[in-house]
């Protein structure tokens, strides 16, 4: 905990506020100074910390993997190549077991989702105060380092996946086929409004569940770390160490679930029901 001058609730809300840049109706263009100001900026604002960390981690991922891809050899692989190959084979196995069509996009998509989300989730394991403290010393008031605890990040990815679901549904089945699937299933044409309602809810549930599952898990995990950080520093390890160890499972699992569900949704989009 930073100092005695902030209350627990202030501390928590401080840790849960993004560094938001946007146009405030009263203060004009700039960074939001409080959570309330960030909320008042509305839609036309951007969470700089989320973007920074997520793009940074994405670049780390693409840099590492493209470095390996450039020097890749069919002979004896080095350590990095071995590691990257293991990941790629893991993703490839998953894709091949779920997705049975020909589409060069799906496997790279799954790989990107898995590794990127895993990296973003991993930021959760960095002690909650370190990076915000350093940022504070540099004059940056808010700094949320786990992009996946920002609903915008998870929703952004989920909506991208949703866009792909729509695109491939229409591409594979035609607009008529896709709409027909929405309208005439599961109960035939006499129950059209009911079918439509059911299917549209089902369709919209896909991106929302994707986004909220990841966001909820990571947000809750982050929250627990913050609560643990409120304890006296000499007992924190009693709770934070087990929770962090457990969290290693959670971050991997959430990345994996997001990836598998995306593949499943893609497979569903390619198949006639």
């Amino acid at each position: 905990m930073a100092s005695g001058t902030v209350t627990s609730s202030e501390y928590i809300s401080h840790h849960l506020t993004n560094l938001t840049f946007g146009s405030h109706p009263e203060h004009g263009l700039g960074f939001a100074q409080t959570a309330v100001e960030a909320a008042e900026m509305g839609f036309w604002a951007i969470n700089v910390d989320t973007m920074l960390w997520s793009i940074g981690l994405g670049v780390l991922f693409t840099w590492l993997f493209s470095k390996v891809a450039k020097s890749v050899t069919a002979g004896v692989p080095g350590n990095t190549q071995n590691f990257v190959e293991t990941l790629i084979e893991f993703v490839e196995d998953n894709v091949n077991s779920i997705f049975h069509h020909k589409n060069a996009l799906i496997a790279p998509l799954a790989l990107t989702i898995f590794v990127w989300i895993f990296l973003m989730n991993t930021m959760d394991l960095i002690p909650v105060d370190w990076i915000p403290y350093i940022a504070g010393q540099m004059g940056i008031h808010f700094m949320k380092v786990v992009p996946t605890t920002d609903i915008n990040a998870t929703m952004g990815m989920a909506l991208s996946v949703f866009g792909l679901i729509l695109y491939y549904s229409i591409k594979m089945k035609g607009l008529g086929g896709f709409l027909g699937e929405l309208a005439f299933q599961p109960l035939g044409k006499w129950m059209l409004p009911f079918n439509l309602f059911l299917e549209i809810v089902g369709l919209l549930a896909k991106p929302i569940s994707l986004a909220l599952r990841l966001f909820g898990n990571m947000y809750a995990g982050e929250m627990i770390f913050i609560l643990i950080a409120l304890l006296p520093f000499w007992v924190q390890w009693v709770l934070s160490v087990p929770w962090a160890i457990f969290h290693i499972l959670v971050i991997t699992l959430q990345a994996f679930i997001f990836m598998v569900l995306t593949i499943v949704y893609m497979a569903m989009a390619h198949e006639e029901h």
Partner: protein
Amino acid sequence: MNINLTIIGQAIAFAIFVMFCMKYVWPPITGALAERKKKIAEGLDAAERAQRDLILAQEKAVENMRESKEQAAAIIEQANKRASQLVDEAKEQARVEADRIKTAAQAEIEQDVNRAKETLRKQVAALVVAGAEKILERSVDQAAHAQLVDKLAAEL
């Protein structure tokens, strides 16, 4: 926890990373993996083939050895046969030669005997004639009694 532009920014970043991954990361690495798989399969294949070849070669070597042994045995047998044949031939030749020599010697002996007999006969004839001349104390008509004397000599 405000929905804002970040959602779009994140979607754009996501799209860029996926496209990058699809273009520069996935194909080369999976290509290398496939190539390695092929290499390993080929290596295993080659090893298996080599093992099969080895077994074949061993069988062939054993077969060759067996053939050579048979051949050697045949040659030795033939040589033995030839040797005994040579000995037999030599024996035969010796026997023939000995016979020839013996025959020649016998012929010579016979000839000598005949010659001696002839000589003896002639001498006996002469002796008889001389004896008879002495007995008769007179000359016998050589011509008249030649037939008689010859007859006598032939009887000797």
